[in-house]
Each structure stands twice: as C-alpha cells, then as structure tokens.
C-alpha cells in the first residue's frame, strides 16, 4: 500500500516536472503567456511529491515490507531500527531517489523564495532544473524502480552489507548528496542566465547562497569521510586519492572557485562568462563523479551498481545535460557582454589567480582519476596514486595559498603592493622565520613548505580585521576569516602529520612495553570478544604520555564470518597535540603479538581545520540570508506605508 503510494507520487512528480518544463518554455517563447504563473507552484509541488515518495521508501524499509524487492534485497527484519531507516538510501535505487528528492526540494525552495531575478531568467532556471530532474526521474522509473514488487514476498530479507552498518556511514551519504545535488541549482541558474543572456551582479547574488549551502554540506561530507577512512581502515592515512574521494573533491574544488568568482561578479560585475562556466562545471563534476563511482567503470569500494545498462543510462543523461549546457555556453558566452575591467594588482586579480589555480588542481585530479581508464583503453593497466597527486596538486595549491594571504587585503579594481606591504610583511616574516627554523631541523620539502605557509597564513587570515571596529565587522567577513584560518589549520595538520609522525611496527609479549614518540605503550592482555556477526581478539593496552596517567586502549582484530573477512578496529588516544593510533595485528608463531603504533602530532588539526572552513561557510550564509531578509522586510514596510498613504 505504502509502496504503491510512493510509486504514484514518483510518477506524478515526474509528470509535474514535465509540466514545469513545458509551461516555462511556453512562457519564455511567448511573452505574457499565462502558463508562466504555473511554473513556481508546480515546482514546489513537484519537490514535495518527490519527498513524499522518499518518505514512503523509508516507511517500507522501517516496517520491512518484504513484498518490495529493494527491501528484501537490502534489509532484514532483525536489523536495528537505525539501519532499517538508513538502509533506505544504502543502495542504488534508494540513493537515486534521494538524489531526485533533493533536486526537487531545492528547485521548489528556489521557486518559493527567489524574487530578485527578472522573471524570464527565473522561468529559464526552473525549466533547466525540471529538464535535469526529468532525466533522473526517467532513470528511476525505467531502470531503477525502488518500489518494484516481489511476488511472492520474500520470507526474510538479505541484510545490509556489514561495512555499511556504522552510524557515521548512515548519515555520510545524505550529507554528501545534499552537497552534490545542491549544486544543481547553480547549474540551473547558469543555464537560465545563458538562455536569457542576463548575467548580472543580481544573478551572482541570487546564486551565491545556494552554492554556499551546497558547499557547506560538501565540505562537512568530505571532512567526515576522511576521518572515517582514517580510523576505520586502520592504515593511519587520512586521504587515499581513491576515485570516490576524488569524486567528492572535484565538485568541491569547482564550487570553491565558483564561490570566489561569484563574489567578484556580485561586487564588481566582472568575470561574467567565467562564473557561468563554473556554475555549469560544478554540478557537472557532481554528475561525472557519481557516474564514475556508480557505473563500476573505476574499481572502487563504492561501486554497488555495477550494471552496464544503468551505466549507459547515466552516461546518456550526463552527455545530454552537460553537453547541452556546454554547447549553450559556447553559443552564448561570446554574446555575454564583457564585464568591468580591473588591474592585475587588485582583489579581482587575486581572485582570478585563485580561480585559475583551483581549476588547475581540479584538472590534475580529474586527469589522475581518468588516467587508469585511458591507459586501459590503450591496453595497459596502471593505478595512479599519491606519487602523482601530491606533488602535482601542490604545484597549484601552494601558489594559491600564497596569494590567499594577500588577496583579501587588496582593494577592488586597482591597488598597489606598496599600500599593503606593511600588512603582508609580518605574515611573510613569520613564514620566512618558520621556514628557516624548519630547514635547520632538516625537514622534507613539502611538509616544510606547508608548515611555513600555514604559519604565515594563520596570521594573514586575520589581517583584514586591521583598522576595523570588531563590532562592525559583518558576518560574511568573519566567515571568510574563519575559512581562511581553517585552511591554515588544516595545512598545518597535514604538514605535521607527514613530517612528525612516528611509526613503530613491533612484535611484543603480553606485559611488554613499547615506546613510540613521547608515549609508552604496554600490552596488558589479549581477550576474545564476540559481536553480533563477528568475533574479535581485543588487546588491552595501557598508554602513558611522558610518564603521566595511564589511558586504556582497546584495538581489535575482528573476523566477520559472512562474508569471511578480517578487519582491524584501531584504537585512538586523542590529546590536544595529536593522536596515538594503535592497531592489533597477527599473532606470530612464537606467541608474540604484532602491534602497529603511530604517534601523529597535530593530526586532528586536519579535520578541525576542515570544520572551520565549513563554519566560515555557515557564517557567510547566515550573514547573506539575514541581510536579504532585512531588505525584504524593509521593502515590505515601505510598500505597506505607501499603500496606507495612498488611501
């Protein structure tokens, strides 16, 4: 019953998306056509119906309705409620339904609140959103129906992949999806603006909060994913350049560039064509990333839809959506009038540099991700890893970070280095001093560069506050400072991790102590423990930092039996200045236990910095939305007064 309701809602939502597209198209072709009035309400109802379908899917999962094939394949009546609930999107069909739900709701929200743009541009934007949505509705209804029935119903479900049964993983996909799919709004705004040739500061201001919102979710999703991989995979690394990580990094790089170029367009009416292009590219990267991961074309842990039919369908959608947008761009960009001019030494100039570098890094990641595919097409098998990605991205990121320290201090349009020299001098000196100290300590090049830059950047991030009254600094500026300071913090964490990590791989008897960095770790005992679908050997370790109070660590070597799989559950001891990371390995023939221990100074700064970056986005978003609200309220008051005076 609920499944039928969900399917009906999905079909209806698809029909409304078609109506939205046709009505908007007709209103655009014939000025003053009545259909234009339909578009906004239809967009809102379409979003709500998609959400209803998604709620129905969650409901059939929660009640474990085994007459629904998807539930029978991915759930189990004895599963904890949290995983029944999260199981709704822990599979291909459910995650695609989540995708269209977010797209529909985001489109509906734009239709509801966005009033600044000329109406034709809004119609074109909502038409574009409907066009992209329609493709995904078709994909769901034709080849990935989440409500497909199983007749007769299964007696019991097959359960959820044990790897996905982690509270963190239950909420990781929705966070990333809101980020990915939220960027569809930027895409639709860009296409809408190309259709009506209305690329203006108002367009950038309208687009900015949506990009910011999506970007915040992407940032949090990436930070959370990185931390999860760090503690769960037991290798002590925090970024692996896995295709899935790259798939989330690429839209993030594009969206970061877009945020900065949109601020140039909003403030100075420059970089018009470029901003539109980035709007197209950001969501294109979301779709490309999802396709690469989901089609199984790149081997990856996340490839749970290895199915050529579905892969071809998504590829077709991709070619249609991105191809059409790029062709439209090529046809129209030349007619988008040139924006305001500016000097190289100016805020705009620095932001252009930032954009070029971010795009360069994006290109490096994209090439590295696709290279194995290219090599396979040419007949060889290769894998591309950190030796390629680390130095190649550094080529773009390091200069960008240097400019990041200077850019916010420059004035719009034209400035001189002479004016800002006093402000830049102190961070530059700090960078130089840090670098020389570290050279004396004999540090490797990349970590040295990172740490010296981080020191300068951390100070430079606060320089825009100079000469301002703190109480009068607006929220978006605080946001920028928080985000830039977060970059410095994360950079410091990365450099500290790669420069100062102490690793020990030892075999010890129980009772024996090992030193790793400032820690003394004693293996007390090994005890067997049992979980719901695994058994484990658990080490009891006592760790003392510089002879201080003992802290207990309990790393496990787990054996799952269906499927038979060994995993190691690492144990962490966190201090303000770093983490001790312990992994229990095999027992050797002589009865000693293998331990892998790391002391990672300041490693937590990586994720802390990432969260600061996201916090910067949140502050900026609140500031922007708040000032928009104030403007709307003020306008409403004026209109109300006029009306009263008129009477």
């Amino acid at each position, binding site marked *: 019953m609920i499944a039928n309701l969900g399917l009906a809602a999905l079909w209806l939502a698809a029909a409304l998306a078609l109506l939205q597209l046709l009505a908007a198209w007709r209103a655009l072709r014939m000025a003053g056509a009545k259909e234009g009035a339909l578009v906004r309400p239809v967009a809102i109802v379409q979003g709500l119906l998609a959400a209803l379908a998604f709620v129905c899917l969650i409901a059939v999962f929660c009640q474990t309705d085994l007459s629904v094939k998807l539930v029978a394949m991915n759930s189990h009546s004895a599963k904890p409620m949290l995983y029944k609930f999260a199981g709704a999107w822990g599979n291909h069909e459910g995650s695609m339904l989540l995708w269209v739900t977010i797209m529909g709701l985001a489109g509906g929200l734009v239709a509801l609140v966005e009033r600044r743009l000329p109406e034709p541009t809004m119609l074109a934007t909502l038409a574009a959103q409907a066009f992209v949505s329609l493709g995904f509705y078709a994909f769901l209804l034709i080849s990935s129906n989440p409500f497909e029935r199983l007749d007769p119903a299964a007696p019991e479900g097959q359960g959820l992949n044990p790897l996905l049964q982690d509270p963190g993983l239950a909420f990781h996909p929705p966070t990333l999806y809101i980020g990915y799919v939220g960027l569809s709004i930027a895409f639709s705004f860009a296409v809408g603006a190309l259709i009506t040739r209305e690329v203006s500061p108002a367009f950038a201001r309208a687009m900015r909060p949506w990009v910011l919102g999506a970007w915040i979710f992407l940032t949090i999703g990436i930070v959370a994913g990185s931390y999860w991989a760090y503690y769960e995979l037991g290798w002590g690394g925090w970024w692996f350049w896995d295709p899935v990580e790259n798939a989330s990094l690429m839209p993030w790089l594009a969206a970061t560039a877009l945020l900065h170029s949109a601020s140039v367009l909003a403030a100075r009416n420059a970089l018009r064509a470029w901003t539109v292009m980035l709007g197209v590219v950001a969501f294109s990267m979301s779709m490309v990333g999802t396709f690469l991961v989901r*089609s199984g074309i790149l081997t990856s842990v996340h490839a749970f839809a*290895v199915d050529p039919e579905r892969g071809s369908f998504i590829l077709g959608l991709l070619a249609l959506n991105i191809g059409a947008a790029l062709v439209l761009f090529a046809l129209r960009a030349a007619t988008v009038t040139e924006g*305001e001019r500016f000097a190289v030494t100016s805020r705009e100039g620095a932001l252009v540099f930032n954009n070029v570098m971010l795009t360069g890094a994006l290109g490096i990641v994209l090439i590295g991700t696709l290279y194995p595919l*290219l090599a396979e097409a040419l007949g060889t098998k290769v894998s591309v890893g950190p030796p390629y990605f680390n130095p190649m991205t550094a080529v773009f990121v390091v200069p960008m970070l240097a400019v990041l320290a200077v850019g916010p201090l420059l004035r719009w349009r034209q400035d001189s280095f002479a004016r800002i020299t006093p402000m830049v001098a102190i961070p530059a000196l700090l960078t130089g001093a840090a670098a020389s100290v570290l050279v004396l300590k004999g540090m490797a090049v990349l970590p040295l560069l990172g740490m010296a830059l981080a020191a300068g950047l951390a100070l430079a991030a606060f320089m825009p506050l100079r000469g301002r009254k703190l109480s009068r600094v607006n929220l978006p500026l605080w946001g920028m400072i928080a985000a830039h300071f977060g970059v410095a913090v994360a950079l410091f964490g990365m450099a500290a991790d790669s420069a100062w990590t102490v690793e020990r791989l030892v075999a010890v008897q129980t009772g024996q102590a090992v030193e790793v960095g400032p820690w003394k770790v004693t293996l007390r005992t090994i005890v067997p423990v049992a979980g719901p679908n695994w058994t484990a050997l658990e080490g009891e370790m006592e760790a003392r930092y510089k002879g201080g109070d003992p802290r207990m660590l309990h790393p496990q070597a787990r054996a799952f039996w269906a499927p038979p799989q060994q995993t190691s559950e690492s144990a962490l001891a966190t201090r303000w200045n770093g983490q001790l990371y312990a992994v229990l390995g095999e027992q050797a*023939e002589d009865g000693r236990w293998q331990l892998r221990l790391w002391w990672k100074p300041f490693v937590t700064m990586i994720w802390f910095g990432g969260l600061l970056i996201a916090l910067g986005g949140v502050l900026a978003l609140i500031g922007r939305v708040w000032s928009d609200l104030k403007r709307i309220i003020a306008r409403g008051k004026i209109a109300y007064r006029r009306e009263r005076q008129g009477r």
Partner: protein
Amino acid sequence: MSAPAKPSRWALWLPVVLFVGFIALVAVGLWRPASRDVHSAMIGKELPRFDLPPAVPERPGLARGDMLGGKPRLLNIFASWCIPCAAEAQQLEQLRQLGVEVDGVAIRDKQDDLAVFLARNGNPYARIGADPVSKIQFDIGSSGVPESFVVDARGVIRYQHIGVIAPDQVPMILARLKEAEQ
C-alpha cells in the same frame, strides 16, 4: 593593465571538445567486455616454502615438497568453521573420485572441530596441514576460505579459484588440472 582578454569564439568550444573526448573515453570503458575477475598475482609463481604439521592424526601434514612431481594437484584452503566449505566438500569428493589428488590446509582450526567436520562432510584430502595463524594462507595470496589452487608438478601455481567450487565448476577445474599437465 586590463581584464583578462576576451576569449576567442573558438576557445569557447574547447570545453565541448574536451567533454566529447571524456564521453568517448568512458563509453569505450563501459561497453568493452572487460573481465572483472580478480587476477591472482601468484599465478605463474612457485609455491612458497612451507612445512605444516598434521591437522588430524589420520592424515599426514603438508610440506611444499609433498606437492612436487607426478600429476598436478589441487590445494584447498578450508576450515571447519567455514560454512561454505561444508557445501564445497561434495565437489572435492567428486574430484577425488575422478582421480585428482586434493591436499588441504586447515586455517585457524582445532583438531576436535576438524574431526567432526570431516566425519560429517567427508574427507577428500590426501594430506591436511594445519595453519593456525594463517601464515601459509597469506604467503600464497589467499584472502579467505575456501580457496583452491591448481599446482603443477614443478610446484608452480597455475590457477587460483576464489570461493566455493560450485557443482557446475567441477569440469572447469578438471580442465585447469589438465592444462597444468603441460
């Protein structure tokens, strides 16, 4: 000192061209009948050196030297606690009756459990070595149980079968053993 030069009309088509290239590349990757089997890095390599004690009293243990000479052999990695292994036992018995010598390595097992397992599911093994810490298992590149290796007379691994040998795969295993005779 001016804004970045306005790109030429042709440059605007560059993203389209790159995108078409991308679509062509992934289309090739998507539709080419690529084999997604796991290729074992151990195929073509010699068996590592090992010498395992007997896992049960009624069968001898297993050393690398036992697997050399004569006909190709099947080395089966199994365990009494592994439920798929019980399902595989019939196929191994069938292979034994067809004249294949099957040698076993029992992973992280106990003698009593193993005796119960063999009594219940049959004992197709000529030799069974005990590998209580999965050492040999890792050395020959096996990541789970059950797994089977076709080893030729010179002690070279010719084929690795991951997972259960299903009833319809018995002829395939026989063919692999036949191939390994050359």
